[in-house]
């Protein structure tokens, strides 16, 4: 499993970790004196090394799951910045994943000569544009209104694939073939492992950027808006602009995640980007803990592995296909309700308070 290595670096990268008192050893103080982006980048490299190691000791199937955890985590982390950072509830995150995924598919189909990195770059640009369009339109909406508007987006966008059937393939979607590992690595890495590596390289860079943003000035502004919009405005925080920027960053993370998903799975269909996807992402985020980037890892592992466990469970108990498909959905719904009822800070928050209690007992 991928937790041990990635967990350690994500914890330090998380905004909640920055208030920890730095140890007094010389090495640690030189670590603390490094600028934040550099620190986040180093942690990202460390995380990537960890994932690579993990890929070598596990099989091909696990490689695909590790890749899935990767892009899901990027999507959840983007949503986290939006919900946890600026307090906006967006139910349209799945829609941005869809935009990213279809952009990837169209680029691979129609511009096959473009390298993958260029495709990802174009996806970022497309997602930013889409994010600005939706974010600017919804900037004045708050609370239930924003949730309602983004819900409409999540329900409505997949309909476009039917509208532009020839281009987007209707309900069958689009199938793409992407290259595997480059020739000189082919002995070393299988296609799945190579893809997992590509995904995680993109993901750790994305996470480093998100962590840097959320611990910087923009992050502080967003949290000020989340805590009290009126007070933030009076303190000189440009509320509208900050909200739009947060929305755009989140959409970009979502779009990139969708692009990576299309790259790994080789297929995009409108039925993968329903309202349920957006709700599941939100549920997983709440499960992992809304306040910290670190909770996004828990969330994405939960999303990927629950699907698998539900399948196993349904197989073991001879449940129908309908039961199997709906089990994770029901689970996430129950989790959402129970976590908010008993553990409003999520699993990560619960662990933190447990740790604090243990430490209090020691001293």
């Amino acid at each position, binding site marked *: 499993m991928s937790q041990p290595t990635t967990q350690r670096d994500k914890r330090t990268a998380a905004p909640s970790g920055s208030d920890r008192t730095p140890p007094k050893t010389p090495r640690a103080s030189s670590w603390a004196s490094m600028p934040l982006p550099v620190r986040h980048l180093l942690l990202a490299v460390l995380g990537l090394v960890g994932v690579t190691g993990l890929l070598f000791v596990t099989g091909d199937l696990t490689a695909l799951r590790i890749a899935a955890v990767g892009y899901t985590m990027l999507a959840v982390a983007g949503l986290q910045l939006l919900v946890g950072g600026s307090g906006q*509830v967006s139910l349209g995150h799945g829609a941005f994943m869809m935009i990213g995924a279809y952009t990837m598919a169209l680029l691979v189909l129609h511009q096959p000569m473009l390298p993958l990195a260029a495709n990802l770059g174009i996806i970022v640009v497309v997602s930013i544009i889409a994010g600005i369009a939706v974010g600017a339109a*919804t900037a*004045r909406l708050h609370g239930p209104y924003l*949730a309602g508007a983004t*819900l*409409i987006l999540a329900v409505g966008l997949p*309909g476009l694939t039917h509208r532009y059937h020839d281009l987007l393939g209707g309900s069958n979607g689009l199938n793409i073939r992407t290259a595997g590992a480059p020739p000189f690595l082919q002995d070393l890495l299988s296609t799945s492992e190579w893809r997992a590596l590509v995904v995680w390289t993109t993901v750790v860079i994305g996470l480093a950027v998100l962590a840097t943003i959320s611990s910087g000035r923009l992050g502080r502004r967003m949290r000020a808006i989340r805590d009290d919009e009126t007070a933030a405005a009076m303190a000189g925080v440009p509320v509208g602009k900050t909200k739009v920027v947060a929305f755009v960053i989140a959409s970009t993370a979502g779009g990139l995640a969708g692009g990576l998903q299309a790259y790994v799975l080789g297929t995009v269909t409108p039925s993968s980007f329903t309202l349920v996807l957006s709700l599941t992402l*939100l549920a997983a985020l709440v499960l992992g803990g809304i306040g910290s980037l670190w909770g996004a890892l828990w969330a994405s592992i939960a999303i990927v592995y629950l699907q698998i466990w539900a399948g196993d469970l349904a197989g073991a108990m001879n449940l129908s296909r309908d039961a199997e498909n709906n089990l994770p959905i*029901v689970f996430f*719904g129950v989790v959402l309700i129970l976590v908010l009822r008993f553990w409003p800070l999520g699993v990560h928050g619960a662990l933190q308070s447990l740790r604090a209690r243990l430490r209090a007992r020691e001293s």
Partner: protein
Amino acid sequence: MTHFINLTLNGLASGAAYAALALSLVIIYQATRLVNFAQPALALVAVYAAYTVTQLTGSYWIGFASALIVGMAAGALVERVIIRPIAKTSQLNAIIVTLGLLLVIQGGVGMVWGNEQHGFRYAFSYVGRFSPADTFALVSVGVVALLLFAVYRFTPFGLRMRAAAFHPESARLSGVKVGLMLTAGWGIASFIGALAGMLAGPPFLSPNVFDVVFVFGITAAVVGGLDNPFGAVIGGLLIGLGMSYVSGYLGPELATLSALAIVVIVLSVRPDGILSRPTARKV
């Protein structure tokens, strides 16, 4: 011209269902200051219950009645067991909990009844321009809305409901059991939501059959103003007309996205809805 008239009549009929759903959202919003994203899911349970009862008894109308009863009971139960403990913590949490409920119920319905479509009949024949089914939709929603207005406006129960919604503390000091009124409000809202489901569900049922209906219902509620029951009804009819024209002239795939455009434009001009009274900003 015939096309236009047909679209208008269709729009009014489907608008009745949107109006009912919007009304159910507004009733709960007035009482709890919460947009109940689980409303379509409650309607879903009610309509599937009607489907099963109709299959078992062979009578559509026994099924219809059980939909309304199941919807009402489900709404009251949800308020008591799930919403009440959460509503105190924060608005964000309460919204997310209703979304969780939406997931649970949609998934649960899928597990029990399956993800595939089931055929489900209309109350009356749906053949022809402004069919009996269309008439029934408009009349039933109209009657329910009038009844609701009369109960709220003229009965002691309605006075208690309004007092509890507008000023819970004063209501309690006047001897109103505010908790009971909240439960009753959710029950009534989900009763009307179930009616919307019975009108909008046919000809086919599936676990996400109400996603699009909900989009139009919430658009109607937002257009009318979330705390204005009259606005909800009028908003529902307007959205029904608008979506009918969009579907007829531009294509049905664009209806949901044009609903998004309507919501965004309306809220940019009047952040609390067209028909809503402007309220002071809370600091």
